[in-house]
């Protein structure tokens, strides 16, 4: 089966590209990235609820969001600046993880109309170094391991 979301990351380089085709008109794909309440909906997941704290959808605007766990504790927070905001075409922004040692990254989001009902997103992400890119790539891998470990602990804990 053809994978819908593709990651292109060349060895030793400090950038990567995420591409994805959507069964949506380009206007709706762009709206999902341009309206806080919609962004909150698709960025929330079973481990956390996303709350947009600040969202200035314009050139030189700022953005910030927080992810909270079921108990309401903030488990993740990110922010950045918007440099370009061209409806249905392009967003250029920075992304910074709060309370982390990781340097800010630069993101170019390009929205392309494929047909009346389909569209494509190309996200080009530039990191300060190749090492940082690889570290960021491994974060979901590492947290996946942690979650698997937590689940294992739960199961083992229940056995006692």
């Amino acid at each position, binding site marked *: 089966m053809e994978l819908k979301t593709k990651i292109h990351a060349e060895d030793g380089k400090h950038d990567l590209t995420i591409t994805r085709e959507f069964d949506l008109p380009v206007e709706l794909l762009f709206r*999902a990235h341009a309206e806080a309440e919609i962004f909150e909906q698709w960025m929330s997941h079973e481990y956390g609820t996303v709350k947009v704290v600040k969202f200035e959808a314009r050139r030189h605007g700022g953005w910030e969001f927080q992810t909270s766990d079921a108990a309401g504790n903030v488990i993740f927070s990110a922010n950045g600046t918007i440099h370009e905001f061209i409806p249905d075409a392009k967003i250029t922004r920075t992304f910074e993880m709060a309370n982390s040692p990781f340097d800010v990254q630069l993101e170019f989001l390009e929205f392309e109309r494929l047909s009346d009902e389909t569209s494509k997103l190309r996200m080009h992400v530039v990191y300060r170094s190749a090492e940082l890119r690889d570290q960021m790539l491994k974060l979901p891998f*590492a947290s996946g391991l942690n979650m698997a470990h937590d689940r294992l602990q739960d199961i083992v804990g229940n056995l006692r």
Partner: protein
Amino acid sequence: MNLRRDVFQAIADPTRRAILVLVASQSMTAGTIASNFDTARPTVSKHLQILTECELLEPEQNGREIFYHLNPKKMKEIADFIEPFRKMWDDRFNKLEAVMKKYKTKK
């Protein structure tokens, strides 16, 4: 418990990555590996020890000599590390698509 994290620490070092590339072509003794580097022999031995400990290299006794060869299974694990990152974005975008389809019908 931190075995897998150690794998990534192991490949974070440029000399150790070079050793892996070298050994990928054929099994070698520590001496042959060391002769390919300007680094002092004990330093190379230390790198080999780390790579062996996290199972990226497997030592094999052949007569009086020990040959190091790659552990393909472990290398595959590293190649697969990008998959959880892809999956994370795929899940997000699937959700985006589902959420926006509701807005589509509202129009």
